[in-house]
Structure formats: C-alpha cells, structure tokens
C-alpha cells in the first residue's frame, strides 16, 4: 500500500505488527484479512485488511462506502462471505460466538425498542441478555445511564423520549457491560453540541481500556475524539492513519474558510483514490 495511504507514524507504532494478526500469540481486538461482506446483492466490503486495538478508531467514508456493513460484520450480525475475521481474539466464523458477544457492545444506526419500556428497563433488559452477573446489573445500568447524562430520565418511557435521548439510551446499552469491543454506528445523530462534547469525553474514557470503533461521516467527531481514522470508499480501504496525517493529506489543496483541514484531507484522499481506481 503506498505511503500516502498508510501513516508512516502508525507503521512504526508498537500497535502495528508484521506478524500474522490472526496468530494465537497476538490477539488484536479486531483482525480482518481479505474480508468481504455483502449487503443484499451488493458487495459492500471488498477484500478489507484491517487490524484495530485498544483506542478510539473513527470509521469514515461517504454514503455507501460500507461502514455500516463492516460494523455489522464486526458485531456478528452479518456473516462475511470471504476472508478471515477475529474479534477480541476469537475467530468470528468457527469460534465461541457466545463468549465473543459477551465482550461486544453494539449501537446500530437505527434500533427498535418496545416503547413502553422505561430507559432503565431497556438497558437492564439488554444487560441481562449480555449475561452480566446478576448482582452487577442494577449498578451497571445506573452507571451507564449516568455516563450518557440520562440519570434523571431513567424512569421515563422510551416512547416519551426525544430522538437524541433515545440515541443516548442506545449508547448506554452498548456500554453497560464495559465491552472490550465497542461498535457505534452514527452515535451522535440527534445529539446537540453539548451532548456531543460529553459524548467525545465518554469515548476517550472508554477507549483507554477498550477498542472503540465509531462509524460516522461527521469528521469533526473523529478529529476531536479519535486516535486514528480509517477511511473507506466502495468497500475498500482508502486511508489508515492518525488525524495529523489525515490533515496533512490536504497539503496542496486549495484552502476554504468553510472547511476544516480534516475535511479537506478527507476529500483529497477520496478524490485521489477514485482517480486511481478509475485509471
């Protein structure tokens, strides 16, 4: 892969390794090799190689890039059509899926809920389904709701909450079991700026001990909260590197007061990738 598309700093970092990421001696939180996943008839993820470890990783890309499909594959909602996938050291294909799922937290892009549940009951129900220790559930639910700023609305029915609050309840259920792998698909949709700032703080806190993958097309969220960024387009890896290198990709591109350096870098990388793909 050309240097332009792989951060030199990342290549030298202790997190990257020239060893086979699927080898038992080295368990990345996420290790994908030649991963292909379909969404309906469309091949949404196409031969992806990716390793992710502890930290907060932003998953960027335009609409239809394959972000949601990749997240679904990492959440074991969808099975890959080809390639290998290992999650928290467990083979997603032939390994113990129940054990794997105990260590995963997942917030879908849209999720259904029983409107008569209170927020507390909804998070509690999912905590039980995640097989958390019985005695730990009530405190974990309270803590999760407190971390998303909904402690005062814990006993309100889901049907009476605003869209942003419902989103935060969704985040609460994803983090209630302190997962080793946290997958968030468009988590800030519907959140106001104050809540988004609080959410970024939460991400950094969780990312200290867990692998967090945030799928979003809000580059400012990635810039503010993520350790590195993964850029996808048409199911393929366009860029993998830290935020500084993403910004540096904009060098030479015309400056525009309406866009940030990260946005310019994002756009420049996409344009270059598409030009190379079209050539």
């Amino acid at each position, binding site marked *: 892969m050309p240097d332009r598309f792989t951060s030199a700093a990342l290549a030298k970092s202790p997190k990257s390794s020239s060893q086979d990421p699927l080898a038992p001696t080295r368990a990345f939180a996420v290790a994908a090799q030649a991963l292909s996943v379909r969404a309906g008839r469309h091949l949404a993820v196409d031969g992806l190689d990716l390793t992710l470890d502890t930290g907060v990783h932003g998953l960027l890309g335009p609409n239809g890039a394959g972000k949601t499909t990749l997240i*679904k594959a990492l*959440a*074991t*909602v969808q099975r890959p059509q080809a390639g290998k996938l290992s999650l928290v050291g467990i083979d997603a294909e032939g390994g113990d*899926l*129940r*054990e*794997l*799922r*105990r260590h*995963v937290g*997942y917030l*879908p892009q849209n*999720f*259904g*809920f*029983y409107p*008569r*549940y209170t927020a507390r*009951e909804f998070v*509690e*129900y*999912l905590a*039980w*389904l*995640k*097989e958390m220790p019985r005695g730990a559930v009530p405190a974990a639910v309270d803590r999760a709701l407190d971390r998303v700023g909904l402690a005062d609305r814990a006993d309100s029915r889901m049907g009476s909450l605003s869209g942003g609050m419902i989103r935060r309840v969704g985040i609460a259920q994803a983090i209630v079991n302190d997962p080793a792998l946290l997958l968030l698909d468009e988590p800030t949709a519907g959140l106001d700026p104050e809540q988004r700032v609080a959410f970024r703080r939460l991400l950094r806190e969780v990312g200290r001990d867990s692998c967090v993958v945030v799928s979003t097309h809000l580059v400012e969220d990635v810039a503010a909260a993520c350790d590195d960024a993964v850029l996808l387009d048409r199911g393929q890896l366009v860029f993998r590197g830290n935020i500084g290198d993403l910004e540096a990709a904009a060098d030479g591109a015309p400056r525009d007061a309406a866009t940030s350096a990260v946005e310019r870098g994002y756009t420049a990388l996409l344009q270059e990738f598409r030009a190379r793909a079209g050539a």
Partner: protein
Amino acid sequence: MRLVTLHARARRAGEIGWGLLGVAVACWALASFVQDTGALVQVLGPLAVVSLLGFGLGGDDPALERTMPQRWARWRAAELSVCAIAAAVALAPALLQADQHALAALRNLAGLGGLTALGAVALGARLAWLAPTAWAFTGSAVGPRAEDWLAALTWPAEAADATSALVLAALLAVIGAVLHMRHGSRVIPLS
C-alpha cells in the same frame, strides 16, 4: 425471573394476553349462544389465537438481539411452548362447547401455529399472521374435500377424522417449530 419478565414484556405479552382474553370470550360466546358454529370456531378460533401469538415471536429489533450471547434456540423453544399452552387455554372454554369440532380445532391450532412460526421466519413477527390466514381462508373457501387429494390442502376445514389433514397439520407444526427455533424471526422485517 427479572429477565423473563422483561423478555415477556419485550414480546408484548401483556397486549397479546388481553387480545387472547377477548378471543376466548368471543369464541366461547359464539359456541354457546349461536347455533351450529362449531365449524366456524374450528377455524376462526385457532386462527385468531395464532395470529395474536405471532406478534410475540420476535422482538422490536431482531438484529440487535442476535448480537447478544444468548442461546436463542432455547428461548424460542420456551416461547413456542408458552404460546402452545396459552393458545390451548384461550380456546378451552369454546372447545368444551364445540363437541365434535374440538379435536379438529386442536389439530388446526397445531397446524396454523406451525404456519405462523414459518411466517415469522419468512416475513417477520409482525406479518407472521399472513401465512396461517392465507391457508385457512383458502381451505375454507374451497371447503372440505375429504374424498380427494385436495383434503390435504383444505385441512383447516376438514373433519377431525380426516387423516391427511391431521398428518399435514402435524408436519406443519413440527417444521414450523424447528425452523423457527433454528432461525428465529426475520432479521430485517418486511414491515
């Protein structure tokens, strides 16, 4: 116990329970006060019951549920067992009045229940009722055909002693239960 309670609510047990009560009262009233309604109760009673229970065969987000470390096959087996018991209890008052149609109604409960489970697998929990309704209506429209091969298709309208009807209903019950336990409700519902 707490998980079971929350799970039952997630499956709309309360709403379905009230609906079953209404169906039980209506079927009992039909069988008790309107003459010669045995054949009607034989089809309509089980159909109403399984249509309601079908809504409980899946949650509001099957995809999110699949990411949970649960042995969902066991959960579904338990759900189907509870559904079968609830259905029998709901229809019992009417069946006690329905004389020779009672056995046919129980046969229909099993067969239409299996169709509902298949409907949940293919269409999602909210549309699961379409499968048993389509078959029961078609069978009733054609009418009992005990003397020819069509009896296998018109099994909901057949008498209790029609062997082919019993066999097909039993097959549907088993196949529907096995497939539902294995696959659960459609992950991306059609509605």
